[in-house]
């Protein structure tokens, strides 16, 4: 076996390892959600038992044991009940009398911290006595869903893993491109995430289904009319679903778990019919909304494969050419300060704001754990759309100021003393303090017969005029540099060819300026989208939000309303919009010009 073959085999084995790791992480995620689901079912079951079982005596802190036995046994006979359940009174099993008793140590532990425990493949939660009393036993629920080998094989992830290993092998043996493996690895991550998300959704659905059965059963077993059962009596059963779980009155609806948008957040709901004309709705925050971190983790693990193999290949090539390796290391050493700065002050804040947005940090966030809820909330905010409209309108000043700047640059593209003075004059506004400029303009614009800043119709226009005034000088300088970079021979050739001034500009100068024009346009649009100071100082977004631009809106969200999550989400959306706009500009305008 030669070296190349050995390396290819090693690479394939490594890729297999990574694929298995991804599967393992996915399994782990599924398990966690399944266990969490079992815990919620166990809690709701415990609450149900507490609701329906009478006390042993009026002053007793314990249940009537025979009643508890009946109620526990009845659980397994509920039509549609799927979760294997065991109820312990003290350590004695009630549902399956032949089952081993609960170890005393476990019960003691439950009494101490009253949290959920995991024992022997089942979720174990304390069973409290009537009226939120002491712990008198325990409820154990085994998680549903796939377990064992089936959990590994039946899902999206396994075939995707096979695919990724195949792609890696093809690449390692030189029969396929690296990007195929990278794509397959991405696919694997997404497929594994789909499995985790599915498990999360399934766990919520199973709890909803179980809770629906428990509520209906409780309604029949509580004294009094089924149609008049008090919600407060049943609420503890729903609260077993954890934080955010609640019970509300409802109208009739199909009795299956669904997702609904309630007050801006996605909720997992099921409707239970308690009696004739009496419906209640169980709501909880869906577990799948908390799977974002798993996507990140799975992507991270899955991409280790391609990155490692690419790195190995690079090092191998580098070892063959030590000088190249040394040069690359040196290059990175030189790049390090800039890269560090970039990471610390650009990428870092970006990630922080992503964290803030995903977690809905601050007031009025998405609620209910990390997710995209904050983004949806921002997108549904009419003020955001209004500010976006204002920003887009405001951005229209960029082409106007560019045309002016180019015109001025053409006129000033010579070198005499007067021209140099004029250039400086044009550049001055750009060099002046923005706040000072804003204050001067503010007083100027309210001096005249018409109060430009007083009407929402003209305030934005006034800001645009000010921006043109402030930006023309800078854009002119860039255009001047561009004009001076055009070799005079092209224009002379055009003169000899018979082109007049107009034709020379449109046929030669303007096309050759295209990279510069693109630069000015892209930076101008980005700057216009980020405009803040003028608005903040001069109009404060008014009047009537007529100048409320995106940057100002997100400042308002974050610092006035203290909705940092929403502010971060809006800033990220702005970032995405700008990425798209800039990419579009480059696509449209950047045909490369190579000077021959």
């Amino acid at each position, binding site marked *: 076996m030669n070296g190349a073959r050995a390396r290819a085999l090693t690479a394939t084995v490594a890729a297999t390892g990574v694929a298995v790791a991804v599967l393992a992480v996915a399994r782990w995620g599924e398990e966690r959600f399944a266990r969490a689901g079992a815990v919620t079912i166990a809690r709701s079951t415990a609450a149900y038992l507490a609701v329906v079982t009478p006390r042993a005596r009026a002053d007793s802190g314990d249940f009537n044991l025979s009643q508890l036995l009946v109620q526990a046994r009845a659980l397994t006979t509920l039509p549609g009940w799927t979760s294997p359940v065991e109820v312990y009174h003290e350590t004695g099993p009630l549902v399956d009398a032949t089952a081993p008793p609960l170890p005393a140590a476990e019960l003691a532990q439950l009494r101490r911290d009253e949290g959920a425990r995991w024992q022997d493949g089942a979720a174990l939660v304390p069973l409290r006595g009537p009226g939120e009393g002491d712990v008198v036993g325990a409820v154990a629920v085994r998680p549903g869903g796939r377990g064992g080998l089936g959990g590994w094989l039946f899902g999206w992830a396994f075939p995707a893993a096979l695919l990724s290993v195949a792609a890696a092998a093809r690449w390692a043996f030189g029969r396929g491109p690296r990007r195929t493996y990278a794509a397959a690895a991405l696919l694997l991550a997404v497929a594994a995430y789909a499995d985790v998300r599915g498990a999360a959704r399934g766990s919520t659905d199973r709890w909803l289904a179980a809770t629906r059965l428990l509520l209906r059963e409780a309604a029949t077993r509580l004294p009094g009319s089924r149609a008049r059962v008090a919600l407060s009596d049943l609420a503890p059963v729903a609260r077993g679903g954890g934080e955010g779980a609640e019970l509300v009155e409802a109208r009739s609806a199909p009795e299956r778990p669904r997702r609904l948008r309630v007050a801006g957040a996605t909720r997992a709901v099921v409707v239970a019919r308690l009696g004739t004309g009496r419906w209640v709705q169980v709501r909880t925050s869906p577990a799948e909304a908390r799977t974002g971190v798993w996507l990140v983790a799975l992507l991270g693990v899955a991409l280790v494969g391609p990155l490692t193999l690419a790195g190995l290949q690079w090092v191998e090539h580098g070892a063959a050419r030590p000088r190249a390796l040394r040069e690359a290391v040196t290059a990175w050493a030189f790049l390090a300060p800039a890269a560090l700065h970039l990471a610390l002050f650009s990428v870092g804040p970006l990630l922080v704001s992503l964290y803030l947005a995903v977690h809905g940090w601050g007031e009025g966030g998405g609620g209910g754990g990390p997710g995209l809820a904050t983004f949806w909330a921002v997108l549904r905010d009419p003020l955001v759309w209004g500010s976006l409209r204002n920003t887009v309108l405001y951005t229209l000043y960029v082409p106007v100021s560019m045309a002016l700047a180019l015109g001025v640059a053409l006129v000033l593209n010579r070198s005499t003393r007067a021209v140099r003075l004029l250039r400086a004059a044009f550049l001055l506004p750009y060099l002046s303090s923005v706040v000072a400029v804003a204050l001067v303009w503010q007083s100027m614009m309210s001096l005249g017969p018409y109060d430009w800043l007083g009407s929402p119709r003209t305030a934005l226009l006034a800001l645009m005029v000010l921006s043109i005034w402030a930006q023309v000088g800078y854009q002119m300088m860039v255009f001047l540099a561009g004009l001076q970079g055009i*070799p005079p*021979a*092209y224009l*002379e*050739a*055009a*003169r*000899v*060819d*018979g*082109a*007049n001034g107009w*034709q020379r500009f449109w*046929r*030669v100068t303007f*096309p*050759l300026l*295209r990279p510069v024009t693109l630069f000015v346009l892209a930076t101008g649009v980005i700057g216009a989208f980020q405009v803040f100071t003028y608005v903040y100082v001069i109009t404060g977004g008014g009047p009537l939000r007529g100048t409320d631009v995106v940057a100002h809106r997100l400042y308002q969200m974050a610092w006035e309303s203290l909705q940092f999550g929403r502010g971060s989400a809006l800033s990220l959306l702005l970032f995405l919009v700008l990425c798209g706009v800039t990419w579009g500009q480059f696509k449209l305008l950047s*045909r490369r*010009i*190579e*000077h*021959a």
Partner: protein
Amino acid sequence: MASVTLRGLTATFEGAARPALRDVSLEVRDGEFLVLLGPSGCGKTTALRCIAGLEDPTAGDVLIGDRVVTQLPPAERDVAMVFQTYALYPHLTVRENVAFALEMRRVPTAEIERRVADVAARLGLTDLLDRQPAQLSGGQRQRAALARAIVRAPQVFLFDEPLSNLEPNLRTELRAELLALHRTLRATMLYVTHDQVEAMTMGQRIAVLHEGRLRQVGTPAEVYERPADIFVARFVGNPGMNVLAGRARTLGKGSGEELVVEAGSLVVPVTLAEYEGQMYLGARPEHVGLSGVDQGVGNGDVLRVEPLGSETIVHLNAGGQPLVARLPGLVNVQVGTRVGVKVDRQRLHLFDAAGERIP
């Protein structure tokens, strides 16, 4: 086709110490290929740009045919110019580049297509028409620039060192192509170069410029064999002419046979009318020979020997003045030895103290 006439052309750039062109008068005949030759900074490109209309002369006139065009913009002069950098519009294809001037002149589209195709076929550019200039080799760019000039069928072609950016082999090839083009087009062409080999091989006549002044106009043979002054003598030819400073002294009364020039370690008898005092003695390297010590017109020390195969260049120190001899074939001369110097007395050139030729 038309002649080009310069009348007392003077051009001074703002802030320049001396004029780029001083009182240059020159006539380029109809259909002639004239080379403007001179070192860099001599004003030859300025002259060309004045003809094209890209520079305004301070004084004097430019005539194309009988028309005084001095005040006309380039577009109305009907000249085409090929730039040193080719100046092909980088954002246009070869086809668009060639068609540009015709489009500017509102030539009908069908006609443009026909003419572009014609010229492309003539210059072997047909397959390259849709490429951008950056995708062409140096020679192809040169041809494209030529095509752009030819397609207009102008009265006058102006070339500004068009071959200087090319490698030597390609330069030779394109030189021949340009001459063939001139023969078929029979157009008036002005060609600026600093390369005296190009000038000698291409020009029907050569106009030598130095420091803004026209020094000599003539056929290559005239310029080579009867240089008008020391500058032309030294500039034309490779290596250039030996020009030694010396003094003329009359040995006795009577015929010119008795006049000798003492230059360095040489004492050369010359055929010349009476002349007294400082002068310059010129001899082409091929008219200088070696002999035994004290057997020629003087002695020299061998400084350097360049055996080139077909000839050998020997650099000598003749009494403090450099002297170059070009000898046929390979010659066995040792560096550091002293040799005698012979000169072909029929081929000597004499210049007065101001550097002008003494007829």
